[in-house]
């Protein structure tokens, strides 16, 4: 106390100002407390100690200042060794407990000993002549953080109330500084934890507000949204990010900003997760994302402050799913129809827009011309463009590039990054270029329509306005499609071809139309049992035979297929020729038998029924000759029927052939029905009973027209066979008109 003391109030102001400066200069409590403690010495104290309360209630000394640094050090060490008892009588502990400052103007040795933490502590305090103490609590936001103690030693002036006030004020400011520093540290630490979590998540996460500002984005979001860093996203203007992408739902419909879950959240809805097809305009890369948004609410008002948006990238999974479901559907289509032109059109429609923006299918025709059988785009106006392109600049098989090249080589091609130069190089003239530009292809895949043995055509996939890049995954899918479609088309073609041939053959085997017989009605019916491709062995004919006579023929060649067809043709034409030559029925049958015997290989069996018909004034005279064939039925007007004719040997294997010509009269209104054994044998599993057959005949003959009767018989046979005939049915019937000359009745063509 050698120097001239300043007025106490000036010291106080000075001290507080300096403390203020120190406390605002740093956020490090350790540093600032030390500085504050030092400020008080020697102006206010000989010794200053600042204690802070730990989380667990321990009183820990954080700063000590003294005129003599050794003293400070010694006290520091001592306090570390002997922590103050929080429940004890040491003034610091009391002040921390009560939150009230305490002034000890004079402290006796006895007093010092009473609150010392052990004898060493007591000795220290006594040795250094602790005289006066002012202890103020560090209070912030209603909580005691610790205590500030100022001490005068030895001969120094004891503290007064004003000094306690000063200590209190100092402590208050120190406490505030500590509190802020702690809060700041807490926030930083929380932020850091959050950051650590979000940054490392694979999902893209953003935080947006009502106006669309992105307040936070993690690295995954930056990567997803094509930004160099999260900062680029958070500093971008709202509404500038989304236009970088083509955003669609899974059906190819463009999605507006207001449909995004984050926007809908702010509109008061509770949006479902949204599946989004997202194509980066700049690169054409396609991604599939699931976008989810959750609200962050204001705890007081419940208002939505922010939307937390998560984008899950499911591109791989979705791509595989899209490809598989496409292939499954395409395969189903290909298997379901033999009309391959129609099927290819349906497949083209299926491929758009999920697989490509355009799909076209071309097929190689018989004479090497390329025919477009399908083209599809979501916009019909664009389809018209493609048609103009095709008709105006139709590809020919020797074109160096494109569909013709793929058909010739049988190899798949993919063209990516088609730019203006590429189009210009490919275009034949300006009009062509214009059309190409209007179509706007950015990538093209052409794959062969591949049947096992040859290439039938090509499938073209084009990416245009979506800008979607076509990848090798797309190429693989297209190649698979090309193979499946090619195989299906080839099968369909072969089937159609066989059917065509079968029809041609059948036409040769059955008469196109029957001649008119005056006074009589003639009808025929043929029902093939097997597939269209199994040419049958049944045949029938109606020929003019001599003067005013007619010959009705029905026959059945054993077997089916090309061999049987050939024999059937032989049988029919041999009989026609023999009839033309005027042979008797017996003669005709023997001639046919000889012809069959002379066949090079194997035994070709044939049964035949010949009926000659001579219309007279009131009735008709018939002869019936059978060679192994079931007897024709004479059906009376009341429906009763009886077989006519005698059994004879079937032709083609056994010698001699024994046949008999039997005379029969056909009265007006009566019907003679010739048939092949497919009719009675239909539905073999249930043995055919004569009773049932008679019943059917009676019912059928009740039909007013002859054609109707034959139909009824056919239906009855089908019913018996439950729709599955084992043998063909051929029916030939002649009915003598009731009165005079019969008018021509509609012929049933074969």
């Amino acid at each position: 106390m050698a120097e001239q003391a300043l007025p106490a109030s000036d010291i106080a102001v000075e001290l507080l100002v300096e403390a203020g400066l120190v406390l605002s200069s740093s956020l490090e409590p350790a540093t600032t407390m030390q500085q504050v403690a030092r400020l008080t010495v020697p102006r206010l104290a000989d010794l200053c100690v600042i204690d802070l309360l730990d989380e667990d209630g321990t009183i820990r000394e954080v700063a000590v200042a003294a005129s003599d640094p050794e003293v400070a050090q010694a006290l520091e060490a001592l306090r570390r060794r002997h922590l103050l008892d929080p429940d004890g009588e040491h003034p610091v502990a009391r002040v921390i407990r009560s939150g009230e400052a305490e002034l000890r103007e004079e402290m006796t040795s006895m007093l010092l000993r009473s609150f010392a933490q052990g004898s060493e502590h007591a000795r220290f305090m006594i040795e250094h002549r602790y005289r006066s103490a002012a202890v103020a609590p560090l209070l912030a936001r209603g909580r005691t953080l610790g205590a500030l103690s100022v001490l005068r030693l030895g001969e120094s002036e004891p503290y007064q109330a004003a000094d306690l006030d000063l200590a209190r004020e100092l402590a208050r400011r120190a406490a505030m500084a500590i509190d802020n520093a702690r809060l700041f540290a807490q926030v930083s630490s929380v932020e850091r934890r959050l950051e650590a979590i979000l940054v490392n998540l694979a999902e893209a996460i953003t935080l947006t507000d009502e106006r669309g500002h992105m307040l936070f984005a993690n690295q995954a979001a930056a990567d997803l949204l094509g930004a160099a860093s999260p900062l680029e996203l958070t500093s971008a203007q709202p509404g500038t990010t989304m236009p970088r992408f083509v955003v669609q739902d899974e059906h190819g419909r463009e999605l507006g900003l207001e449909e995004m879950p984050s926007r809908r959240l702010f509109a008061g809805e509770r949006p479902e997760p949204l599946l989004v097809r997202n194509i980066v305009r700049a690169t054409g890369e396609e991604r599939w994302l699931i976008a989810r948004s959750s609200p962050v609410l204001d705890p007081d008002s419940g208002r939505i402050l922010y939307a937390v948006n998560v984008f899950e990238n499911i591109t791989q999974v979705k791509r595989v799913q899209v490809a598989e479901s496409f292939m499954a559907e395409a395969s189903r289509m290909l298997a379901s129809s033999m009309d391959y032109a129609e099927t290819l059109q349906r497949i083209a429609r299926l491929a758009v827009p999920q697989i490509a923006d355009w799909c076209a299918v071309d097929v190689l025709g018989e004479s090497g011309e390329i025919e477009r059988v399908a083209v599809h785009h979501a916009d019909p106006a664009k389809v018209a463009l493609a048609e103009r392109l095709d008709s105006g600049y139709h590809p020919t098989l020797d074109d160096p590039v494109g569909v013709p090249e793929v058909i010739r080589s049988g190899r798949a091609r993919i063209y990516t990054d088609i730019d203006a130069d590429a189009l210009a190089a490919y275009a034949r003239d300006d009009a062509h270029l214009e059309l190409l530009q209007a179509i706007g292809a950015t990538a093209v895949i052409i794959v062969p329509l591949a049947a096992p043995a040859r290439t039938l055509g090509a499938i073209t996939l084009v990416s245009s306005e979506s800008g979607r890049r076509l990848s090798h995954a797309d190429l693989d899918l297209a190649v698979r499609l090309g193979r499946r479609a090619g195989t299906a088309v080839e099968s369909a073609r072969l089937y159609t071809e066989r059917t065509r041939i079968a029809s041609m053959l059948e036409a040769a085997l059955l008469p196109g139309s029957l001649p008119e017989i005056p006074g009589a009605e003639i009808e025929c019916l043929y029902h093939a049992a097997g597939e269209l491709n199994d040419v049958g062995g049944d045949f029938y004919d109606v020929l003019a035979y001599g003067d005013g006579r007619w010959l009705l023929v029905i026959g059945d060649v054993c077997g089916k297929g090309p061999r049987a067809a050939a024999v059937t043709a032989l049988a029919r034409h041999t009989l026609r020729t023999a009839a033309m030559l005027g042979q008797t029925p017996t003669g005709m049958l023997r001639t046919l038998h000889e012809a069959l015997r002379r066949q090079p290989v194997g035994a070709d069996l044939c049964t035949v029924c010949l009926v000659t018909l001579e219309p007279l004034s009131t009735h008709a005279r018939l002869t019936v000759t059978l060679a192994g064939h079931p007897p024709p039925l004479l059906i009376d007007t009341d429906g009763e029927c009886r077989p006519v004719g005698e059994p004879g040997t079937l032709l083609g294997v056994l010698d001699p052939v024994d046949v008999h010509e039997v005379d029969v009269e056909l009265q007006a209104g009566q019907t003679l029905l010739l048939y092949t054994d497919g009719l009675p044998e239909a539905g073999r599993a249930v043995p055919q009973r004569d009773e049932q057959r008679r019943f059917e005949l009676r019912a059928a003959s009740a039909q007013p027209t002859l054609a109707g009767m034959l139909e009824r018989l056919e239906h009855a046979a089908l019913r018996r066979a439950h729709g599955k005939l084992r043998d063909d049915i051929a029916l030939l019937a002649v009915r003598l008109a009731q009165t005079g000359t019969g008018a021509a009745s509609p012929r049933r063509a074969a």
Partner: protein
Amino acid sequence: MRGAGRTLAKVASPAWFSGKIASMGVADQLQIDVRHGAGRVILSLAGELDMASAEVLQQAIDAEGLSGETMVVLDLQQLQFVDSTGLRVILVALERCRDRGQGFAITPGSQQVQRLLSVTGVADHLPTIAVADEVLA
């Protein structure tokens, strides 16, 4: 006369046929039982002899080394149905036996079988015995 016979497996288990049976799918349609004895070979047919199973009978006739026997008998007693294809096999067998100087006979089949034989006028060409073991008169 019953000789030491050996029963072949039913057509369903193709012991002596190739996979052809599987492709024709005739497993249950025709059963052929072969017996040898007293210089004759008897093929007993049961089921249906039609376009699907005719080939099987043809193979049985071709395969069994029937040429050594004096007589071939087709026992049709258990045969329910025959169509023209089946008939052809029977007639071809008849012809071959004749060419080889072998005897050939059938036993009567079901009503349908008999009707077919009658309609096709072959009944008189096919020697018929009442029972397979019977000696021809």
